[in-house]
C-alpha cells in the first residue's frame, strides 16, 4: 500500500529521531568538557534507545513510502534492529577504547558519525529506489571514510582512510554509471518499476548485464565480495578497532540488505508466483545465480586462504569477515525465502560473534598494547575470562557446536541443500574446515603457548559483564534458537512480494 508524501513522514520517524540525535550529539561538544567522552556517548546511546522505541513501534509494518522511495517492511525492520544493537554496542565499546583517546577532542564528532552511519544503514536497508540506494550508500561510505581516519595522528589510520575513500568513491562511481544505464534502459529508478520493465522481456540483455555488473562492483565493495574486497584488510587493519568492528557488521549488513532487496525485488517475477518467489525468472538467458555462486565461492575461499597467513588480529578478522561475506552470499545464491532467512539468521550470529571478537581485540590492545596473534600468547592464563570469551567467539565464527555460529551455518547449508546446490554446500563446509585453522591459531596462542610474563591482567566488572552479554547468546541461542529463527522467517517479507 503506497502512502502519500505527507503520510510518509510518519514512517521515517526513527530515521528522523536518529538525525536529531546526530545533531544533538554533535552539539554536545559545545557543552561541558570537550574531552569528556561520556556526554556524547550517552547522548548517542539515548539516541539509539529512543530510535529503538520508535522502531519497535514499526513492527509488522509493510509500507512503501515517499512515492516508492523507501520501504518500511519486516525485512528492513530486521536490519534496523540489527543496526541499532550494533551501533549501541559500538558506542559502549568505544567508551572503553584507549585508541580513540588520541583524538580526545573530537568525541562528539565521533559518536555523531556513528549515528550518521546508522542513519545511512537504515536507508540502505529500506531503499527501493536506485537514487536512494546510491545516496544512502554514500552516506554510509562518507561516514566510514571519516571514522576510519578518525585517529588522524596515526599514520595507519590515515592510510586506511585514504585507501578507503579512493576505493569507495571509485566503486560508487562505477555503481552510478551502472544505475545510469539501467535508467536509460527503463526510464525508471524505482526498483518495482524496474521489475515491471524487466518483465516485458524487451530489454537488451547485454546492457542489463553490464549495468548489473557495474552495480555489483558498488555493492560488492560494500559487502567486501571478491574481487571488490581489496580495501577491506587494509582499512580494517588501519582503522581504530571500534570502527573496524562497526564497519564489519553494520556497513556490511547494510550492503547485504541493499543487495538482497535490489535483486529480489528487481529480478523476481512477482506476478508469476509470489508464494514460491524462488528463481529469477525474468532473464532466462542470464544466469544470475551462477554469478553470485562464483562470487560466493571466490569470496569465502580467498578470505579463508589469505587469513591463514595473517599475524595481525585485526587483519585476520578482516579476512575472516571477507570469508563470512562469502558464506552469507551462499544463502543469496538460492534467492529463495529459505536462503534469505538463513542469511538473516546468519547476520544475527555474525553480529554477536564478530562484535564480540573485535571487542576482545580492543580490550587486549588496551591492556597489552598488541594486535599481533603472538601477543596473545598465554592470554588464557593471564586474562582467563577474556580469553574464554574470545574462544567462544572464534569457535562461533568457525561454526561448531555448541555455538550460535553453528546454527547460522547449518541454516545456510540447509538452504543450499534444499535447493540442490550441493556442490556449493560442499565448498562451503570445506571452507569452514580451512577457517578452523586460523581461528584455532589464535586459540592456540592463547592457551597452548606459555607467556613470557604471566602476571594476571583483569578487566573490570563492567567489561566482563559486556563480554558475558555478548557471549551468552552465542551459546544460549544454539541451545534454543527458535526465536531467532522465527524472527528471521518473518523478516523475509518485503513489501510487494506477498
Amino acid at each position: 500500500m503506497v502512502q502519500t508524501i505527507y503520510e510518509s513522514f510518519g514512517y521515517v520517524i526513527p530515521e528522523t529521531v536518529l538525525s536529531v540525535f546526530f545533531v544533538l550529539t554533535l552539539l554536545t561538544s559545545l557543552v561541558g568538557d570537550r574531552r569528556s567522552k561520556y556526554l556524547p556517548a550517552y547522548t548517542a546511546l539515548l539516541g539509539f534507545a529512543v530510535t529503538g522505541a520508535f522502531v519497535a513501534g514499526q513492527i509488522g509494518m509493510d509500507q512503501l513510502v515517499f512515492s516508492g522511495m523507501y520501504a518500511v517492511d519486516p525485512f528492513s525492520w530486521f536490519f534496523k534492529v540489527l543496526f541499532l544493537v550494533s551501533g549501541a554496542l559500538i558506542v559502549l565499546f568505544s567508551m572503553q577504547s584507549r585508541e580513540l583517546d588520541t583524538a580526545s577532542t573530537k568525541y562528539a564528532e565521533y559518536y555523531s558519525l556513528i549515528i550518521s552511519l546508522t542513519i545511512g544503514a537504515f536507508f540502505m536497508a529500506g531503499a527501493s529506489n536506485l537514487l536512494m540506494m546510491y545516496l544512502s550508500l554514500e552516506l554510509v561510505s562518507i561516514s566510514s571514510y571519516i571514522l576510519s581516519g578518525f585517529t588522524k595522528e596515526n599514520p595507519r589510520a590515515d592510510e586506511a582512510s585514504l585507501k578507503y575513500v579512493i576505493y569507495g568513491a571509485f566503486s560508487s562511481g562505477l555503481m552510478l554509471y551502472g544505475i545510469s544505464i539501467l535508467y536509460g534502459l527503463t526510464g525508471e529508478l524505482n526498483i518495482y518499476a524496474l521489475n515491471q520493465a524487466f518483465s516485458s522481456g524487451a530489454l537488451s540483455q547485454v546492457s542489463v548485464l553490464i549495468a548489473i555488473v557495474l552495480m555489483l562492483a558498488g555493492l560488492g565493495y560494500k559487502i567486501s565480495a571478491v574481487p571488490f574486497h581489496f580495501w577491506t584488510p587494509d582499512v580494517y587493519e588501519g582503522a581504530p578497532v571500534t570502527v573496524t568492528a562497526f564497519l564489519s557488521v553494520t556497513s556490511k549488513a547494510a550492503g547485504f540488505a541493499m543487495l538482497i532487496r535490489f535483486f529480489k525485488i528487481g529480478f523476481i517475477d512477482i506476478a508469476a508466483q509470489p508464494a514460491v518467489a524462488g528463481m529469477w525468472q525474468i532473464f532466462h538467458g542470464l544466469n544470475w545465480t551462477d554469478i553470485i555462486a562464483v562470487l560466493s565461492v571466490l569470496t569465502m575461499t580467498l578470505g579463508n586462504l589469505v587469513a591463514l597467513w595473517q599475524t595481525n588480529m585485526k587483519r585476520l578478522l578482516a579476512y575472516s569477515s571477507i570469508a563470512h561475506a562469502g558464506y552469507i552470499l551462499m544463502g543469496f545464491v538460492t534467492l529463495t525465502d529459505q536462503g534469505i532467512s538463513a542469511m538473516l539468521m546468519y547476520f544475527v550470529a555474525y553480529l554477536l560473534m564478530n562484535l564480540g571478537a573485535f571487542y576482545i581485540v580492543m580490550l587486549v590492545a588496551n591492556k597489552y598494547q598488541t594486535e599481533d596473534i603472538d601477543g596473545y600468547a598465554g592470554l588464557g592464563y593471564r586474562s582467563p575470562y577474556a580469553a574464554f570469551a574470545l574462544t567462544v567467539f572464534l569457535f562461533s565464527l568457525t561454526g561448531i557446536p555448541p555455538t550460535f555460529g553453528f546454527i547460522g551455518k547449518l541454516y545456510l547449508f540447509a538452504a543450499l541443500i534444499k535447493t540442490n546446490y550441493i556442490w556449493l554446500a560442499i565448498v562451503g563446509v570445506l571452507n569452514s574446515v580451512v577457517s578452523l585453522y586460523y581461528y584455532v591459531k589464535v586459540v592456540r596462542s592463547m592457551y597452548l603457548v606459555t607467556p613470557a610474563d604471566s602476571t594476571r591482567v583483569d578487566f573490570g566488572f563492567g567489561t566482563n559483564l559486556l563480554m558475558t552479554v555478548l557471549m551468552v547468546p552465542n551459546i544460549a541461542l544454539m541451545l534454543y534458537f527458535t526465536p531467532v529463527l522465527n524472527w528471521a522467517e518473518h523478516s523475509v517479507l518485503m513489501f510487494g512480494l506477498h
Partner: protein
Amino acid sequence: MQYQFLGIGYLTWITFLPLIGMAVVLLIPKSNINAMKWTALAATILQLVLAAIIWVNFKPSLSGINDPNGFQFVEKTRWIDLPGVAWFGHVAVDYFLGIDGLSLPMVMLTALISFVGVIASWNIGKSQKGYFALYLLLDTGMMGVFVALDMFLFYVFWELMLLPMYFLIGIWGGPRREYAAIKFFLYTLLGSVLILLVMLGLYFSVNVTDPATGQAMHTFDMLAMMNPQNYDPHALFAGIGTYWRYVAFIALFIGFAIKVPIFPFHTWLPDAHVEAPTAISVILAGVLLKMGTYGFLRISFPIFPDAVLKFSYALAILGFINIVYGALCAMAQTDFKKLIAYSSISHMGVVLLGIAALNTQGVAGGVLQMFNHGVVTAMLFLIVGVIYDRAHTRGVNDFGGLANQMPVYTGIMTVAFFAAIGLPGLSEFISELLSYLGAFQTFRWIAIFSSIGIVLTAGYMLWTLQRVFLGQLPEKWKGLTDVNGRELVSLVPLMVVVILLGVFPSIMLHPMSATLNNLVDFIHKVGTGMTALK
C-alpha cells in the same frame, strides 16, 4: 516413565552428570586441587553406578535400531519447535534419548573409561581446574553421542566433544601437542561437516506426520530416517539404490571413517595419541574411536542399507588394509605410544571387517570388539603412562628387563598385551573370532588375507614385550618403582573386565544380540527393497 530420578530420566542423568561435575569444578577455588579431583571422580563414579543400574534394568529381548518401541530408557521431548515455517517445514528437533543393544556396550564403555581416566589424571601438573572441567565436558559429549537418537542432537554431542579434546591435547599434551591438537581438530571437523551435509539432506528428504498436529513435517529423528516410506518421493535421498544415496553414504562414511580411523584417514591418530596426556590417550583410543564405528552402525547402515550392501565389499577391503597396514606400521615404531596407536588402527580394522560382513556373528563380533578394544587399549595406554611417569621416555628400545624391576606391572601388562594379541581366555579373542567368522562367511578371501594380521600382531606385540620387559635391566632404570595403588585402581577393573569377558562373553553379547539381529535383518530386507517395513 519408569526409570527416573527426580523426574529426570536416567539417560539424561548419565549424560549430564559430568556437566554438573564440571559446574562444581568451576566453582571450586583454584587452590583446592584435591577437591576438583574428587569432584571429577565422584561424577564419574556416579556415572558408572548409573551405567550399572541401566545395565541391570536393560531388557535384552528388545530389538532397537529402527523400532521406536525397541528402545529402552527412552526420553523424548520437543527441544526446538517451529511450526509452519514455509520452507524448513515444521522444524522439530527432539530431545530424543534411548538405548538399545548397540548403544548399551558403548554406554558402559564410556562410563568405565571415563572413570579410569580420572584416576589416570590424578597427577596432572598444571591448570587442574581447566583440565577437569574440560574432561567432564568431554565425558558429556561422548555419552551424549551414544544415547542420542535424534540426529541433530547426535551431531551436537559429536561436535561438543571436539573442543575439549582440542584443549586437552593442546594444553596438557607432549612437546608437539599443538601440531597434534590442530591435526586432530581439522581432521575431525572435516569429517563432521560432511556428516552435517548428509544430515541436512536427510532432513529434507524425510517427511513424517507430526503426531501432535497431524501435519506432515521434516524430522531429524534417526528412526524415521530409516523407514523408506517416510521419504518424499521427489526428495534427494528417496528410493533405493539411487545415486545421491550412494554419495551420501560415502560422505557419511568418510565422516565416520576419520574418527575410526580408516586408512587413509588415519594419520591424525598416531600424532594425537603420542602427544596427548595419558588419560586423554585412554579416552581417545578407548571411546572416541568407537564413535566412528558406532556411527556406521547407528546411522550409515540402517539409513542407507542399499548402499551398505553395495559397498560392503569395499568396506571389508578397507578393514583388511587397516588390519595389515596398521600392524605393519606398528611393527616399525619405536615410540611405545605410537606403536599402540597403530595397533588401534589394526584392531579397528577388525571391527570394520566384522560389521562389513553384515551377518549376526560379524556384527556382534564387531560391536564386541569395539568394547573390548576400548578396554584393552585403555589398559595399554595406562601402562605406557605408568612407565612414562617414571622414566619420562617412551622409547621402546630405551628399556629392557623391567620384568624383574616391576613384576606386578609386568604381570598386568602381559595380560593386556596378550589380550591385544587375541589370546583365548581374554576378551579380544572372542570378538576377533566372531568378526572373522562373520567376515569369512561373506568375504572368504578377504578374511583369509586379513588373518595375516593375527601373526603380525603377535609379532610386534611380543617384540615390544621382549624389548621392554625382558633381557637385562639397564643401570639407569634401577630406581623405577612398581605400580602404586592409584594406578592399580585404574588398571585392575579393566583387567577384570578383560578376563571376565574372555571367559563369559555372553555377558556382553546377550544384551546386544536381539538388536544386532534386527539390524542385520533390516539391512538385508530394506537394502534389497524386499520390504518397506511398516
